[in-house]
C-alpha cells in the first residue's frame, strides 16, 4: 500500500482528503485509481505534475514501480533556468 500525498490543487476535487493509501504496482495504475475515485481529478492534471517516490522526483513516472511502503508526492514540474 503506497502512502499517497495529494498536492494542494487536488484537495477541492477530493473533498479535502490530502493523504490516502493506495495499492498499485506502478504510478500509472495509481493515477488511474485516483481519477476513477475522484471524478474532478483529470489525467491532464497529472500530466503537468512530477511524482516523487521516496524522495526521488521524476517528471515522467508512469511506469516506475511502487514498493509496498513507498511514499508518493505529486509536485509541480520544474525545469529551471
Amino acid at each position: 500500500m503506497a502512502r499517497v500525498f495529494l498536492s494542494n490543487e487536488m484537495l477541492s476535487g477530493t473533498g479535502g482528503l490530502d493523504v490516502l493509501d493506495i495499492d498499485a504496482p506502478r504510478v500509472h495504475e495509481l493515477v488511474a485509481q485516483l481519477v476513477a475515485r475522484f471524478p474532478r481529478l483529470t489525467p491532464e492534471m497529472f500530466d503537468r505534475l512530477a511524482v516523487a517516490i521516496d524522495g526521488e522526483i521524476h517528471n515522467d513516472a508512469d511506469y516506475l514501480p511502487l514498493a509496498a511502503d513507498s511514499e508518493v508526492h505529486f509536485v509541480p514540474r520544474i525545469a529551471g533556468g
Partner: protein
Amino acid sequence: MSTRHQFEYVGTRPIRHDGMDKVTGRAAFGADFSLPGMLYGAVLRSPHAHARIVSIDTTAAEALPGVKAVVTGRDIAKTNKKVYLGGEGALDLADMGDNALAHEKALYHGHAIAAVAASSLEIAQEAARLIRVDFEVLEPAMTLERALAKDAPILHPEMTTGGKPLEHMTGPTNIAARMEIKRGDVEAGFAEADLVVEHEFRTPMVHQGYIEPHATVARAGADGRIVVWTTTQAPFLVRDACAGILHLDAANIRVIPSEIGGGFGGKIPVYLEPLAIVLSKKSGRPVKMVMDRDEVFRATGPTSGCHITMKLGAKRDGTLVAASASMWYEAGAYKGSPFGAAAMCALACYNIPNFFVESHDVVLNKPKVAAYRAPGSPMATFATESLVDEIARRLKIDPIELRLKNAVASGDHAPYGPKYGPIGLKQVLEAAQAHPHWSAPLKPNQGRGVACGFWFNAGMNSSATVSVDSDGSATVVTGNPDIGGMRAAQALMVSEELGIPVERVRPVVADTDTAGYTDLTAGSRVCYATGMAVINAAEDAREQLRLRAAKVWKLEPDQVVWEHGEARSLIAGDDRQPMTLATIASTLAKTGGPIIGRASVNAPMAGPAFSANICDLEVDPDTGCSKVVRYTTVQDAGRAVHPSFVEGQMQGGASQGIGWALNEEYVFNAKGAMENAGFLDYRMPVASDLPMIDTVIVEVANPSHPYGVRGVGEVPIVPPLAAVANAMRGATGVRFGQLPMSPPRVLAELEARKEEPAVALSSGS
C-alpha cells in the same frame, strides 16, 4: 546504484577542448554565421505598452526596393492547443507564439508586431519604419498594484485564475494562477512563538544580462526542409516550439546550435526563430536576424519583479516554529512567472512544523518573463534569509548557529512534500562557519551578512554516444550546447570510464538531426543528466571493448576484466600481455567492426543543492554608495567533475546576485517604456566593483548519479540577495526590504535613521 568515490581523471582541471577556439576568436557564435544570398531581418516593435492592433498596412514597406518579405501576426495562425514544453507553465506554445509575433494586442512596449526581410539590414530597418500600424491605445498596467486593482486594465479577457483560486478570484482578472503549500497549524505555531518578525519585500524586474544578443539564421527549402542556425540553450525545444507555433512538422526542422554567449535561462524560449523561418519561406532566401541590446532588454525574458510579505515565528532558543508568506510574482505579458517554484523554495532550507505559503502569478504590461537561474528562488530566499537574520540579531544567536539549528537533513520532509535524500546543507553551513572569512575583523562602516539557498536541479532526458576511434581515442557526442565548460566535464567522464587521458577524448555538441533527443541546457542538469548518459554510453563502449578482447584471446567473457584502459585476462599464470584500448581499436575492422557505446536516460531530478554565502559590505555613510569588499561562497556539488567550472558557476552566480542586490533594475516611464535598456544605465557589476570571490566546494554524494554529481549551475544566485542585504543591515543598521539597495535609497534611509536612532524595521517603500 553504488556511488563511486575514487577517481583517476574526474576532479582534475584539464584545459577545455573548445578553449583554443574561444581564446583565438575562431569560435562561432550566433551572429558569426552567414550564408550566401542571405537576407537581413528587422522587427517592428510596439511603441505602446498596451494596445489593440486594429490594422497593419505593409504596402509602403513591401514597395521599398530591396524588401523581399514582410510578415505580421496575420501570417501565423494562432496556436490554440495547450502544449507545455519542458513541463513548465512558462513554456506554453500559444503564449510563446503570440509573444514572438503579436496577433490581436500589443501587450508590452517592444512587443514584436511585424518583421521584414531585405537585401540589407538598413533597408529592412527602413522598411520596418514604413509599416503603418493602427493601434487602439489602452491604459497599461505597469505595477502589481495596478494589475490587481478592481478597475485594472485586463490583458487577457478570456483568462481565469488557475491552480487554487480564492472564491473572489472569478471573472476577468490579471491573476493567471494562485497556489498554496501548507503544513501543520500556522496560527497555533505563531501563538507558540516567543518572537515574531514580519517584513515586506520588493524586488525589481531584472535581466539575465548575457553579453551575446539573440541571433538566428533560418533557411526554408523549397522541399519544405527547414534548417535553423541559432544561439539557444534548447535546440530540441526550438525545433518543437517552431513546429508548434508555425503548424509545421518537427521532422522537417533541423536546429543547429551555435556556441552560446550566455543564457542563464533567457535563451530557452524562441523569439527570432519563428520569424526568420516565415520570412525565409516567404522570400525563398535564407534570413539572418540579430537583436540589438535595446531589443534584448525590451523584448526578451527578464525575471519577475515581485512583492512578498513574510512572517516568521521562533522560540527563544532560535527554533523556527511558524512561517507564513504571501507572494506576488510579475509574469509580464503572459502567464508563467516562477511563482510556484518560489513558494516551494522559500522555506526549503529549514524544518518548520507550521507554515502557510500562498503565491500568485500576475500578468501585466511588461516583457514576458523567462527563466533566470533558479527561477523564483532568489527573491523568495531574499525574504526568508533576511528574516532569519533579523531573528538571529534579536535573539543574539550566531546567524550560522541559528541556521544549523533549523537546517534540513536527509530524511526531513521538504516544504513541497517529499523527503530529502542525502543533502549537504549542514556541511555547507559548517564549512562557512569554519572559513577564516567568518571570523575576520571588520573595519568601520563595514557589515557582514550570511545567507543560504536551495535549488531543485532538474533531471529530464539526455542521450549520448561514445565511439572508439582507430587510434584509440574516443568521440563523445551529445545534444547540449556548452554554456560553461561542459565539454571538458564530459571528456573527463569518458576518460574515467575508458581509462584514457582526457586529451584523447573529443567532445562534440551535435544538432537535432545528429544527436539523440536531449532536453535543454538549463536547470543545472547537463553535468548530471547528460553526464549520466555519457557515463552509461562509455560503459557500453568499454563492455564492447572487453568482449572484443575476449574474442581475440578466445576466452570466455567472464575471464577478461577492464582496468586502467586495458583488457586483462583473469586466468592464473596467464602470460598474455594486457590489451590496451589503442591495440583493440587499431584492429576493430578485422575483429568485428566499429565500437559505439550509446545510452539515453530520463533522469530523476538531480538531487537538491545547497549553498551558503558570506558577504562583507562597506557603505559610505555620506553618499549611500556601497562596495562588496569580501565574498565567500560555499556549495555542495555532490561531486565536482571539473572543479574550475564548478567554481566558475559559484563566482558567476554570486556576481549576478550582487548586481541584483545593489544596482540592477528595470526602470519604466509613465508610458510603460523601459528607460534604461542599455549596459550604461542597466548597471551590471564591472570588474572594479568586485573583490575576488572565494569558493569552497563541499561534496555530499547524490545517490541518483554514478559519481554522486548534483546540479551546480543555479543555486549560486540564490543566497547573494540576502547575504548582501544582511551585510547592509550590519553596516547601517537598516533592514532593507526593497532592492536594489541603490545609493539614493540607502542615503534616504540613513538620513531617516538620524532622526530616530532606535533600530526599526523599515517599511518596504
